[in-house]
């Protein structure tokens, strides 16, 4: 009877707090150093989380921890980390057809593919990246087709997409790179020129569609077209277009495309972006830089560990990513990406910003995540030392005010 009663409570709470949560405890986190990313770091800081949201941030000696709060301690406390571009949840750990949903090869232009229809919240690699303190993922369709589909923003906690989702459609993912070119004779796009021609034609189509849809008489309205509907949202600047481009000429083409259609652009990959600092700066485009250990050949042959530092120095907003991995390892860990950036020109706090507040701003979710400020989501990561040192451990992960991991990793 008692057990039954308990399970009723659990079920009720599950209904209130989907995502496998039992109850959102009130949590206090004490850190010898607390990086709020909304001001200088606080020595001996405290963060109170109430009902899943951050309530108080301050010096430990000026914050009173109310009775009943669970207290966690750590050497270093940061906002929950944000991976600004991943395919985790789509490109599964086994790398077999049954767990690979990051790319549909049946056509070069498929903006209608929604990320929420494929995200696997229980994928093991979600737990893997979470164990290092990554609490938010911008994930979805991978580079590889001209327009490969939509992306979504999720928390790395929750058993379903509905429990995990922060933004259902975050961006439309496009690829201006040899990755999207077909080598078979007669298949398009086969060249850089054709890639641009096809993209432009599609956006022109979307312009026409939007015009007809918004102005025509009811009986003359065009049939619904899922792909063009999404592109109209890009044309309206409701959704950014995230374009993967690495060679300088592909980056230049990307900027040209964004200008022609007045698109809100996010540059992705951007291996040779250090050659075009002025152009990227002038375009006001943020950059999500490729993972550092992509292989230095082909379009990546000129990649550099110092790209983040060069862009940042030029005043260009920068975030880092785990990206898409086709083989072993099946994902990068954005914490290690930031570590390498910190070792190659970024300051510690700039590197941390690139996986917290700066990433949140680029993705448009800085109202909820990315810094430790009152009313933001209770997402915190705890470490037993400098988070960037490979030998430190992530000792705690808190998402939406829930302590989801305390196993040192």
């Amino acid at each position, binding site marked *: 009877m008692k057990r039954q009663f308990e399970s009723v409570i659990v079920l009720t709470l599950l209904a209130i707090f989907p995502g496998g949560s039992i109850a959102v405890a009130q949590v206090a986190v004490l850190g010898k150093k607390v990086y709020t990313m909304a001001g200088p770091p606080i020595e001996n800081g405290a963060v109170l989380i109430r009902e899943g949201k951050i309530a108080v941030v301050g010096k430990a000696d000026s914050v009173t921890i109310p009775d009943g709060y669970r207290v966690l301690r750590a050497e270093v406390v940061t906002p929950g980390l944000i991976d600004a571009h991943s395919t985790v949840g789509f490109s599964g*750990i086994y790398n077999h*057809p049954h767990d690979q949903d990051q790319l549909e090869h049946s056509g070069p232009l498929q903006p209608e593919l929604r990320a929420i229809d494929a995200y696997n919240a229980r994928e093991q690699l979600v737990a893997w990246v979470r164990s290092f303190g990554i609490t938010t993922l911008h994930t979805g369709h991978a580079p590889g087709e001209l327009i490969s589909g939509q992306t979504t923003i999720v928390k790395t906690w929750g058993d379903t997409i509905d429990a995990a989702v922060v933004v259902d459609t975050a961006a439309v993912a496009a690829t201006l790179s040899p990755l999207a070119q077909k080598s078979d004779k007669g298949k398009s796009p086969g060249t850089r020129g054709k890639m641009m021609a096809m993209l432009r034609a599609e956006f022109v189509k979307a312009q026409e569609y939007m015009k007809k849809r918004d102005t025509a008489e009811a009986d003359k309205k065009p049939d619904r077209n899922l792909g063009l509907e999404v592109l109209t949202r890009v044309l309206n600047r409701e959704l950014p277009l995230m374009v993967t481009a690495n060679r300088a000429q592909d980056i230049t083409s990307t900027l040209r495309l964004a200008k022609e259609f007045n698109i809100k652009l996010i540059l992705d990959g951007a291996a040779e972006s*250090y050659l075009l600092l002025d152009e990227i700066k002038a375009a006001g485009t943020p950059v999500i830089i490729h993972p550092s*250990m992509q292989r230095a050949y082909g379009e990546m*042959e*000129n990649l550099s560990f110092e790209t983040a530092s060069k862009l940042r120095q030029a005043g260009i907003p920068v975030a880092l990513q785990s990206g898409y991995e*086709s083989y*072993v390892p099946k994902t990068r860990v954005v914490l290690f990406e930031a570590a390498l950036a910190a070792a190659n020109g970024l300051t510690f706090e700039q590197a941390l910003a690139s996986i917290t507040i700066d990433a949140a701003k680029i993705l448009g979710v800085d109202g909820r995540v990315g810094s430790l400020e009152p009313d933001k989501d209770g997402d915190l990561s705890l470490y037993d030392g400098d988070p960037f040192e*490979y*030998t430190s451990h992530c000792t705690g992960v808190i998402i939406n005010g829930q302590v989801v991991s305390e196993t040192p990793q």
Partner: protein
Amino acid sequence: MRSSLRFILLLVGIGLPTAAAQDKPIAFTGATIIPIAGSPIENGALVVHQGKITAVGVSSAVSIPAHAQRIDMTGKVIMPGLICTHSHIGGIGGADSSAPIQPDIRIYDSLNVRDSGFKRALAGGLTTLNIMPGSGHLLSGQTVYVKLRQAETIEDIFIRDADGNPLGGMKMANGTNSMSEKPFPETRSKSAALVREQYIKAQEYRDKIARATGDASKMPARDLAMEGLVEVLERKRIVHHHTHRHDDIITVLRLAKEFNFRVVLHHVSEGWKVADEIAKADVPCSVIVVDSPGGKLEASEMTFRTGAVLEKAGVLVAFHTDDWITDSRVFFRSAALAVRAGMTREGALKALTLAGAKMLDLDARIGSLEVGKDADLIILNGDPLSVYSKVLETWVEGKKRFDRGDPKDHLYAVGGYGAGRDQSPYFCCFDHPEGQ
């Protein structure tokens, strides 16, 4: 005549400074020396001469020859050059898709010594590599052990035995990696059967030669593949065996016992499940550490703990880059992540140096800073396991081969325009159904 004169001048021009550099000992003073053989030495001195280490110890105890060139390394850390037991750099092309077992393939016949990968390896502090043909075969050919010396041709980087023959091992693999359509095996049993069949053939070939006792009329026709396998049977050539899953690891141990070959287990993703069995067989492991598990089924239970678990079981552990799988420039990350998961610092640093030397049978020459060993060393500006530390210099046999302060070398250390080259890298598995 004129051209031969120019040739002589060239020889003299090249020869003189080299000889001069070798004549003068170099003394590195004031550094923290991590000799691997023994505890770290604060305020140490290291003297190298003619490519060898001639003295190492606490500064006060080392007598530095008066004519030695002294280099002040106060605040720096010196340790042996790193050894990668498993690399694929150099634009290699090993066995082709015609057969699953190809012991006649010599990887050095395919190497491009000008590949930018060699520069990146030096920037990462690597001085010795075991360059292997890729996987996708049960046996994909002969590997080669190289030193990252200044080189015009591939011969310049060989490590040779007393008779002048280049040294190397034999690359083998099992599990899903080497399973494919005909003529490749479809199952694990067939994989083992094909391997056994070839080694038994090699035993017979060897015995036939022995029975001929030099009588040419009784000798079998020369067979390059069999010659390669006989070197394995005679324990001259160590088998470097790609293997991931726990049962595949046990299969390798079984075959090594049957044919009495020397073997190093490579990757060993599930080695943590059979650590005691590996220890009992007294077989060393070269472990890969990557940022996440997965990418294929048999690597899905890969963990940072493998190094720690094997170390605790008493297994000799090294790491490898498997470059392109991990970038040689961040080889230290492999060791540091193993320490994160419980391996000792000493064990992890040894796993980048002396342990690898043992697995290549080169520990008498390299792997630690000891008198008489090759002067292969790196200079760092801090704790080798810290992400913030940099390899400042890499020395091979007493010659500086990488200097981070030199803009040309710096380019390879961090990348940038011109650091890569237009050439196809070797991909082990991308055309393979498993890797898709």
